[in-house]
Each structure stands twice: as structure tokens, then as C-alpha cells.
């Protein structure tokens, strides 16, 4: 079993409300899918303010691992804890409240296509019964991701990069303590991926823990030039700390 204690590097400002507490922790986790075991004996802990990349070949289980991290999947065995509370057996309401502390940028973004972009970005506030706060945040947030002009357009009318940035804006509107992004630069050009990386780095500097699954080695190298980054590699059903070659 490989265990990655992925704590922030020295000199980093720790963020989050609970200093010293792991925001997400996987303990000896196994997950089986379709009769086969995707991975087993996997342990991982993410500290507040940390920045991690998760790499690995296609089908290794990166997306599954991320889903376990935000409680969308339940492990076959082992334990996933969000802020020291195990997700197994957690009431669905409690899980929903924990998800509000985690901003997720999905691989395919996942929007409500019948709503304009501004309402999609404000959706986490809406479901939390705080829609009235949206007007205070939306202008700055849409400006930050460069989508002010597209506020009233619907998601299907946006390009891949615009959708990714919109997903990032939605992920951070509740000021979550963790950002989890699954292949956020998968469908966009280099310039756009650099803009997204800049946004993620900025969030990390604000104290958010960031976990990004990606195939893009150039993105990881670019990130390493800006912040202290740990890279994890999911391969052969195990999670390894990747070396300096990355």
C-alpha cells in the first residue's frame, strides 16, 4: 500500500477554517466497478491550502478517485472522511452540506442547460437559500473568469473554454475550502489552459486546497513554476507520489 501524506510545502500559507485538520482523507480505500477492482488499499490526505495534481493513464480511476473525494461515490471498503467525518453512513443532508464546502469542476462541466450562465454560476448559492447574495458576487466573479459578456447566454451556446471557466466560477462562488477539478483543460487550447491554471493558482494562494486530475504534463510543469505542487500518480491500482521528473 502506498500512502501519500500530501501536505503543503514549506513557507506556504495554510488556508481553510480548520487549520491542522485534513480536509479530505482516504483511508485504505478500495473501489470495485463492474465486477473488477479499480484500486485498493489507497490512502491519501489533503491538507488545507495544498495543491495536488493527480495523473495516470486513462481508465486508471482518476475520475472515480475524485468522486470518492467529494462523496459522489462510496468506497467498496475503507473510509473516506471529509473534515474528519466519514462519508460512509453519512446522512444525505450532511453530505450535501459538506459538498457546499467543496467546489467541483467536472470533466464535462455539467450545467443546467435551460438556465442562463449567471444562474448556473449562482446555483450553489441558490440551493443554499442564499440567492439574494448572488448579485454581490456575480459581477466580480464573471469578470474574474472573463465571462461578463456571456452572463445571459445559455451553456450550450458557450465554447469549451468558456464552459470550463464558468464551471470554475460556479465552483468557487460559495468560497469553498477545496477545489476539485477533473481534466479542466481537456478540451481547451494552451492559452486558455494557462488562464485556468492562473485562476486555480490564485485560489490556492487564497488558502484553498486544490486537487486537479489531468493528463497534461505541461500544465503541471507550468503550475510548479508558480506554486508548491505535489503530483500523485494513479497506476496499477495504486496511488504513488510522482517523482521530480514531472
Amino acid at each position, binding site marked *: 500500500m502506498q500512502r501519500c501524506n500530501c501536505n503543503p510545502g514549506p513557507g506556504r500559507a495554510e488556508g481553510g477554517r480548520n487549520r491542522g485538520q485534513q480536509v479530505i482523507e482516504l483511508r485504505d480505500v478500495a473501489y470495485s466497478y463492474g465486477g473488477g477492482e479499480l484500486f485498493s488499499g489507497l490512502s491519501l490526505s489533503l491538507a488545507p491550502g495544498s495543491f495536488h495534481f493527480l495523473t495516470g493513464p486513462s481508465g486508471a480511476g482518476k475520475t472515480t478517485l475524485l468522486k470518492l473525494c467529494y462523496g459522489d461515490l462510496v468506497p467498496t471498503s475503507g473510509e473516506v472522511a471529509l473534515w474528519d467525518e466519514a462519508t460512509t453512513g453519512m446522512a444525505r443532508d450532511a453530505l450535501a452540506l459538506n459538498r457546499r464546502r467543496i467546489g467541483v469542476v467536472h470533466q464535462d462541466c*455539467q450545467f443546467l442547460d435551460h438556465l442562463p450562465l449567471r444562474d448556473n454560476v449562482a*446555483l450553489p448559492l441558490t440551493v*443554499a437559500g442564499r440567492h439574494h447574495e448572488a448579485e454581490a458576487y456575480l459581477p466580480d466573479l464573471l469578470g474574474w473568469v472573463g465571462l461578463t459578456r456571456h452572463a445571459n447566454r445559455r451553456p450550450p451556446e458557450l465554447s469549451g473554454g468558456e464552459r470550463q471557466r464558468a464551471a470554475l466560477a460556479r465552483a468557487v462562488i460559495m468560497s469553498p475550502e477545496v477545489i476539485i477539478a477533473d481534466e479542466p483543460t481537456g478540451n481547451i487550447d494552451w492559452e486558455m489552459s494557462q488562464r485556468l491554471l492562473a485562476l486555480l493558482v490564485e485560489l490556492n494562494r487564497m488558502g484553498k486546497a486544490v486537487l486537479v486530475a489531468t493528463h497534461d504534463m505541461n500544465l503541471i510543469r507550468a503550475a510548479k513554476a508558480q506554486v508548491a505542487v505535489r503530483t500523485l500518480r494513479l497506476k496499477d491500482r495504486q496511488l504513488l507520489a510522482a517523482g521530480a521528473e514531472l
Partner: protein
Amino acid sequence: MKRAFWTALSFLAGDVQADRSVPPTGFTARLTLFTAAAMALLAVFALSLSLASARLAARWSDDLAQSSTLRISAPAEQMAAQTAAALEVLRTTPGIASARALTQEEEQALLTPWFGPDLPLGALPIPQLIEINEQGGGYDATGLRARLQAEVPGAVLDDHTRWREPLVAAAGKLRGLGALAIMLIGASTAAMITLAAQSALSANAQVIRVLRLVGARDSYIARAFVRRFTLRALSGAAVGTLLGAVLVALLPGGAQGGDSFLTGIGFSGGDWLWLVLIPPLTAAVAFAATRGAARRMLERQS
């Protein structure tokens, strides 16, 4: 009670933003509206049938229970004497308020529907009828029959029990069938709306996934669907009830249409108030059905 009222009002007023989270679904919306309207229409008919049966049962039960008939069949030369003897027996029987021999014209009127107005009543051996009106708890029928047998050999007492009771029982059963029909209509409405809600929830699986992703609780997701289906059922049922009320009002005779059961179907006076209950009851059924379906579906999808 006051709290429940405000909760219901707040539910109906809803949360505009939450409602917008779920896209409009044309097919299930139309299905719910149509089902609620059709079922409300049927409920109006079942209710009118049930109320008409209740009225008929009450009329037969109350009116006929207080009256009976004495029939005297005797040779023409003894008829007057036996009639007088019978009236005397009846006059002295406790529990009888009054007794009166029907005139020839009244008997003629009774027979006219069957034999026409030209029946030569005087030439036919028609029995003499005496109408008896009871008082208090009525009379002792067994004792009266015994006295009549001794003093008026041609008299036959008909206290209406023989044919009144089966009719009252039949009317009661008809009323029960009406109530059963209303319950079946309610169950069918619940089943149809459950299916429509399940269909809407399945069609919106992606919406539910996104809402969960951003931290929506099950109650939030369910509420958006439940409110939509409840309001559709309420408006559909209102239309169906109105249409049903108009159709019943247009029936010949109506509730005041006389003694016939068919012409007595309808609503009278306070009966109309029952109709006001149909739309909110349909909405309550839709609320419970959709909430149950949503909870089961969300539990399965988690």
C-alpha cells in the same frame, strides 16, 4: 392550524429560483393536468350519485317510516262497515296519529298511471285503502294485525317494511359504491401522478446530478418537483370540477327533480360545497404521490 395554513401558503407561493432549477417538461405537465381534470370530473359525477343515493335513502327511510296503509278487500255490501270498523280500531291504537280512508277520486288518481283516466272504478272490486300516519315511536304492528284479524277480516296491514327496507339498503349500497368510486378515483389519480412524477424525475436525472453536485439537499430537489406537480393537479382539478358541476347542473330534473332517482341526481343547497373540496384534495393527493415518488427516486439515485 395557523402554522399549517402559512406552511401551505408558503409552499404554494414557492421559491422562484428553486422552481427554475427544474426545466419545464411538456409531456408530464400535460399528463398531470389531463389526469387531474378527468379524475375531478369523474369525482363530481360519483359525488352527485352518492349524494342522490343518500337523499333517496333518507327520503324513503324518513317519509315511509312514518306512514303505512291498510287495505280492505270485502264484498261491496260489507265494505262500508268494515272500513268504519277498521277506522275505529285505528283510532284507538296507540302510536297512530291519524287514519283516513282514501276517497274514490284519490284511488282513481293512484291507478291512472297504469289504467288511464277513464277507468270505471265504481264497476270494479277495488279494495278500500286507509292511509295511516304514525306518531312517536309508531304502533305495535303485530298487535294491530291481531286486532284487525278479529274485527275486520278483510283488512291487510302494509307497514311498508317489506319493500322499504330493501330499497333503503339498496340506496345505502349505492351511496357506498359512490364513495368507493371516489376512493378509487383518488387512488388512480395518485398512481397516474406518481408515474408522471417518476417520468419527470427520470427525464431530469442530469438536473438532479448537477443540483447534488452543488450541494442541494434532497428536500430542495424534491420540493421543486412536488410543488410543480401539486399546482398542476390543483389547476387541472379545478377545471375538471367546474366542468363536472356545469354538466351536473344541466342534467334534467336536478336535485329537486322529484321522486325519481335518475331525475334526482345532482347537488342541492349545501351539497355544492362538497365540490369546493375536490381541487384541494386532488392537490393533496398529488403532493403526497409526488413527494413519495421523489423521495424513493432520490434515494435510489444516491
